[in-house]
Structures are given as C-alpha cells and as structure tokens.
C-alpha cells in the first residue's frame, strides 16, 4: 500500500480538524485519501453514511489547483455546496444545465479567476464542447467521480453521460481520478476501474455493513393494513425518522392521513416543491422541529443529520442498491437505528412500472430510428422538445438510444447542446432496428432482474444482513444491536419510552414572543 510521509500525514490530520472539526478519520477514509494526495487513481467504496465526501473534500482543500466533482443529481450538488459553505468553506461552486446561462457564465468566470477550489459539475454539462474547452484552461489537480456506479451498465443507476467521462479526463490533462461509491457489486467495481484507468489494487473496499442498523420487514395483507402498520410504527418508534415513497403523491397522501390523525411535527418533501420550500423543510428537520418527513428519494441525499433514528419504506425500492442508499441515512452517529420495509402482496406493480417508464418502447425506438435512417451521412440536431413531440421520447430515452446507437456504430460523436443533441448519422445506418430494440430491452430486463432480487430479499427466510453482504460479495454478520427480523429484534431499543402524546393544543400565539424568539436580544 502507498504510504504518506509522516509530515504529510500530520498536515492531513490538522486539515481534518481545521475544516471538518474531526480528530479522527473513519474507517477507510485515510486509506482512500492517500491516493489522490500522491497523484494516483483510486476507487473507494464506503457505506452510505461512512463519510465519503471527506475523502475528496479534504484532498481538494490541500492540493494546489481545483478539484472537479462529477455528481449525477442536481439536488445533491446543491446540498453539498450548501453544506461546505455552512462549514465556512466558501470556495465551492456547482454548474449544471438547469441554471440560467448568466449564472453559469458567472460561475465559469469564478472558475477561470481561480476563485473556486471545489467545482461540482453534472456529467451532461461536460459533454458540451464549448464548456469543456474553457474548463481545460484551468489547472485541475483532482477529478472525482461521485456515485461512480453510474458509469457501469451493470450498476443499478447507469447514466450514459458517465460513459464519456474518460474523454473529459483526457482533455483536462489526465489529473488523478478518485471514484467513489457506496454500492458496487464486483462486476461494477471492475467496470469502474476499466473505464477510469484505475489499477485494481487501488480499490479501497470498506465493509458496507452498517452494524448499527437493524433491518426489519413488515408484511401487510393489503394497502389498508400497510397504512395502519405505518401509523403504528410512527406512534411507537423513537424519532426523528424518514418515510420513503416512490411517488410524490404517496408522500403527500401519507402527510394528509397523518394530519387527519392529529400527528404533529411532520411534513412532506418531494422534488415537485419549490426550492425555497424544500430548503425550509430540510431546515426544520435539521433543527429538530420535525419528527417525521414523508419523502421521495429526493430528500436526504446531501443532508447531514447524524441522528435519524429510523427509515421506513412504504414502497419497495427497485433494487437492493437503492434500498441500502436510502437506509444508509439512519444513525450516522453510530447509535442503534431501525429500518423497516413495508410490503404488501400487490405492491410490486409500482417499481416495475417505474422501470418500464425509464426505457423507450418499441414503437418509439422504431420511429426515432426510421427518422435517422432518412439522414444517413448527415449531421443531425435533435431538440429535446422535438423528441418529446414527435416520438414521445423523454430526455433520458434519447440519451439511452444515442448511447446504444453509438456503440453499434450507427452514429458518431453524439454530444450535448444547450437544448438537445448533435451527432453524425452513419452511412451504414441499418434498415432494420431489431438489434437496437433487443439491446435496450436487454438493459431493461436487467433492471427487472434487480427488482426480482430485491423481492427475493424480502421473502427469503434467512438473515437479511447476510444476504445484503452476499450481494456485494462481502460477509456481513456483526451487528451492534438487533440484527434483523429473521434473527430477532428487541423493539424496545427503537421505541420511545412514552408513546406519542395525542395532539396537544397549540398554545396561544403571541407576536411579540415570536419576534423575541426570532431575534433574541440578550
């Protein structure tokens, strides 16, 4: 293993304290950080909640030049930057295509003026050539690929834009690469290393077993029973906690039901809410004003709340990776935490449907391909709006199609523009598209298979922790408190001493008191 000098290691600890207020590294962190500091490529696998961010934020602050972080979700980027600023680290920015051009330009100028130390970028932004050219003028000391499993076809969250990252890295002068993920099966790990030129001996694999989390599954006969289980759990469990839904509607509905039951201190949260409103809910939760948030998976990614005591899943996630990621928000402080998935016989429908919607159907594929077939040998621009209007293709559908068509040499050099894509259609574009349909459906079926695996985990009569470990080729057997429902749970560990009080009447609101609370003057 690569070693740092003693002096280097000392300054590393100093920086850890100075920037993040920690005295010690968590398991695996130091092993990962060594590589970027010495200019080597590496892949780090740490459990969700295991302190992944510090693995690149710390080297980024210590190295000369700028660190680029590729992150798949805009909300996650914003959360990370907010979080860094909250810690007093001001030189962090993020750029993605959702921002106004003016805003992007201003931020890019900050980058050019070397005022940015850590720059978060969405992968599709890197596909824009003009942007890439300007970025290439700035010295980049570290290139971080967060959620690196997105690069692999075998991962649960494959993103085609991630596939082209190696080109970007080359254009930036081959800075050291640090790939990070919490969920990578062996196949995915190999894929990441291959695509990002990481020597396999530079894989730092930390157990993704979260010893302090207890895994429970509750089976309900139908929706109604599921609801009553949910509210019984909310009544007895020690908070604060999160309840995850796969749909916005589900989260809002649960909130309404809880209002009807007189449950106070809860709120809902999803991506359909305005940014300012979402921020307020996050704040209320962080500041301990809320006990429960009913949320879609848009919530919690970047939130650093160490004392979330339970995570309930009202809907079955589409794969084990997603489940672990969401459950990983429980008890980051190491105290015992409780996770429970609520399952009913007929709720396999929703995740399956969501997967189906992610892929174009046969008619859409044929329509789009037939259109390109008339443009052989030409440069073609496809607009997002046009794709939706003509073939009903969403942005992600087009990305998937272009990706596979490029692989099959039906077209060349696809890249992003502001409102769509531009690429060159091959002279040899075929007349029949069965192979395309087959490939895309193969990918979709792969996802169904993962869903099946998730379902199997629900029903298999063996230790849940062990099965989760096996899924990632690890051995998980130790648990801090209770292990899982198969091994037996001591619910007293996770329940509150006193059951929740029934609704308390709100005391009389008085504006002067409120103002005093807002602006206390000692």
């Amino acid at each position, binding site marked *: 293993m690569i070693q740092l000098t003693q002096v280097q290691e000392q300054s590393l600890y100093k920086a850890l304290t100075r920037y993040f207020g920690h005295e010690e590294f968590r398991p695996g962190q130091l092993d990962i950080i060594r590589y970027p500091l010495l200019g080597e490529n590496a892949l780090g696998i740490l459990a969700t909640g295991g302190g992944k961010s510090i693995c690149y934020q710390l080297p980024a602050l210590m190295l000369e030049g700028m660190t680029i972080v590729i992150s798949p979700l805009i909300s996650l980027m914003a959360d990370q930057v907010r979080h860094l600023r*909250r810690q007093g680290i001001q030189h962090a920015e993020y750029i993605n295509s959702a921002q106004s051009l003016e805003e992007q330009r201003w931020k890019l100028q900050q980058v050019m003026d070397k005022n940015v130390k850590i720059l978060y970028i969405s992968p599709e932004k890197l596909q824009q050539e003009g942007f890439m050219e300007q970025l290439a003028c700035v010295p980049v000391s570290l290139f971080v690929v967060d959620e690196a499993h997105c690069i692999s076809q075998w991962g649960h969250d494959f993103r085609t834009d991630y596939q082209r990252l190696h080109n970007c890295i080359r254009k930036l002068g081959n800075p050291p690469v640090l790939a990070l993920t919490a969920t990578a099966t062996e196949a995915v790990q190999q894929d990441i290393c291959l695509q990002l030129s990481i020597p396999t001996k530079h894989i730092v694999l930390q157990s993704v077993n979260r010893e302090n989390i207890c895994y429970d599954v509750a089976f309900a006969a139908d929706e109604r029973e599921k609801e009553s289980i949910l509210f019984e759990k909310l009544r007895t469990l020690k908070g604060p906690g999160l309840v995850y839904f796969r749909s916005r509607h589900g989260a809002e509905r649960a909130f309404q039901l809880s209002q009807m039951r007189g449950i106070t201190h809860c709120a809902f949260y999803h991506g359909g809410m305005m*940014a300012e*409103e979402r921020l*307020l809910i996050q704040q209320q939760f962080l500041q301990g*004003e809320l006990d429960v948030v009913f949320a879609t998976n848009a919530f919690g990614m970047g939130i650093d709340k160490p004392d979330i005591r339970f995570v309930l899943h009202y809907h079955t996630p589409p794969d084990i990776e997603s489940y672990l990621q969401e459950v990983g928000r429980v008890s980051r402080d190491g105290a015992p935490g409780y996770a429970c998935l609520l399952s009913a016989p007929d709720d396999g429908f929703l995740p399956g449907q969501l997967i189906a919607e992610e892929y174009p159907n046969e008619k859409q594929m044929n329509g789009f391909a037939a259109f390109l077939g008339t443009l052989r040998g030409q440069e073609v621009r496809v607009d997002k709006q046009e794709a939706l209007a003509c073939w009903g293709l969403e942005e992600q559908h087009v990305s998937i199609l272009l990706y596979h068509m490029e692989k099959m040499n039906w077209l060349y050099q696809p890249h992003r523009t502001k409102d769509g894509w531009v690429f060159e259609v091959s002279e040899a574009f075929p007349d029949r598209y069965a192979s395309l349909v087959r490939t895309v459906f193969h990918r979709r079926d792969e996802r169904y298979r993962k869903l099946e695996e998730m379902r199997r985990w629900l029903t298999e009569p063996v230790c849940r922790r062990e099965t989760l470990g096996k899924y990632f080729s690890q051995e998980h057997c130790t648990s801090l408190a209770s292990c899982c429902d198969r091994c037996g749970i001591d619910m007293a560990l996770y329940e509150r001493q006193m059951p929740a009080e029934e609704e308390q009447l709100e005391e009389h609101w008085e504006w002067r008191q409120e103002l005093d609370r807002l602006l206390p*003057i000692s």
Partner: protein
Amino acid sequence: MNVEFEEGLFLVAASRFHGERTPQAIVHLLRGRKNNQVIADAALFGTSMLYGVMQGISADEVRNRLNTLIERGWIEVHPGVKEGVCCSMVGKEELQKRERTFHYEACLNAITSVHEKVRAVRFWKKLSLFVQTASYLAEGETLFYPVIEQRELQQEVKRVLLDNPDRRMLVSQVKQEIARWMEERNDEERQLILRRLSGKARAGLTYRQLADTLHTAEGAVTMHIIRLAAEQLVCMESSSYPLLMKLADKRAGEAGLTRTAQQTRSLLNKGYSFEQVVHRRGLKPGTIEDHLVEIAIADPDFDIQRFVSYKKIKRIQAVMREKGLKKISEIRREVGDEYSFLEIRLASVRALQGGGRL
C-alpha cells in the same frame, strides 16, 4: 381549498378584463409572459399582482383550467373580431364568495405594476435573509444555510450588513422596526410575516404549512405576503424605517427594464428627441414607442409630457374615467385622430397610477 383559490384568480382576471381582452390574455398574465404588451395590460387593468402566479404550469394546462370555467359558464367569451373575456353573473357570485375568503381585491390594489411586484418580492426576500442573518448574529454565529440563495440578493444584503458594523445595534434596530411594522397589522398578518421568517431558534414555515395553520390556501398566503411587503414599501416612504429602507430597491430605477429599453432611456436622459433616438438606435419608431410605455409603467416619475401635452393627458384620462374605456382603439375613437396611439397609451398608464406625476 387550493382549487377554489385558483378558480378565483381566473375570475378576478376575467372580471377586470371585462370584455376588453381575449381569454388568451389571461393565460399570458397568469403565466407571466415576458412581453411588453402583457406587462402594459397588467398595469392597465390593475392585475399586476396576478402576473406570473402560475409560472410553473404549462400554457396548455392553464388554458385547460380556464376552459373548464368557461364551460361551467362562470367565464364568458364574447365573439367579435377579437374575442372579449369577462365574468358571467354566476361567475361574479362565485368570485364574491371567494373574495370573502381570500381577499383578492386588497392584493390587487396593493400593486400597480409588474415592476412594483418585483420590487415587493425582492424586498421580502432580502428582508428574510437579513432577519435570518441577524438572528444568527444575535447568538454570535455567522455560518448557516441561507434561506435565499440568489447571489445578487445575498450580496445586497451583505452590503447593508457591512454598512452597520455594530451587530448589537443592528439586531436591536431591525427588531424595533419590525415591531413597529407589526403594530400596524392585524394578528393574521403578523402570523404571515413572522412565522414565515427563519431564524436560529427555528426555521420558517413553508407556504403550505402557513396555509394549514391559518386555514387558507397556499396561493393566498403567498399573495398576501407580497401584498404586505408592497404596502410596507409604500408606508416606508413617509415614515421612518431607516434600516428596512436599505433593503428596498430604489424606486423604479433601471431595474426591471429590458436592456433595450434601458438604452432608449439613457439616450432620452441625454436629451435626444424621439426622432433622434429612433435614428441613433436604428430601430422602428414603433419599437421605441413600446420602450416609452415600458419606461412609463416602470417609473412613475418618468416625465411623459415630453411626448404628450398636459391638455391631451387630461382629456384622455377624462374619457377613460367617464366612459369606463380601457381599449386604446376605443379611446381613440372617442378623442379623435389628432391623438396618436402613443399619446393615449402613455396617458392611460398614468391614469392607472392615480395620475402619477404630470
């Protein structure tokens, strides 16, 4: 509750347009289309408060919701060369019911132009960030998650903070001024303002949470907060709120004008005549006329008498008042061809701003 509130928005708009605009004009207004005509209409009919309230919804969807009310017979469309949209008798009754719950009129009357709305929103946002900052400063803390993330607004707030280095003074002064503001308001209004604000001890409520607390609609809460901010801005002109005043944009400066109108304005300020501006900018006279109207709406102090005589202004405004006319072409039919469209447009803008400065 929310549906009811939203139906009311369509009804208010239709009743204000009163047959003088097309149904599509309602869609443009509610979606906040960035277009001089839409902004000028909003000022003309006193509907600027409604500008952009359905920003996040697609034009088709807004049109669908409007059509539902037309089918229901609440909103009528009169055929003609240009269709005219208005409220039916039933629609008016429905509107009255909703008016009692949501008080649209008070909101609409608080704002006379889109620019004023923008100014009120910006004031409210800066105030929210300022109070949050003060709340943390009161506890000696400087790091927190800001409730307002627009950089430009953050920087403006920062400037006010830097101008007031004595933090204890700052906190107590902002507290005093807010207390004075609250004394002038009823309890529901106080809740809207104070519970929405965030501080160190607690985060503010979302609009939805506020609406649930006060048993009203989310949209109504949002609109009344803007109303309160707008009314406070007016109030601060005559009475002394030195600190809060620093958070208000200067009245109708360059802000809010399109860049091209700004250029026209700066040439006018240098003393160029209308024709000279047309020539120097190489634009059509009609475009420059649009700029003049845009500037007049944005800036009540803009002197329109360079373009239309005092006598004509008085006559146009009298016709509008006495005959209840708002359509430029109808006004022109009344006053005669010696009045240009530009003259009528400028005078009508001022008429709605309560005469403005002549």
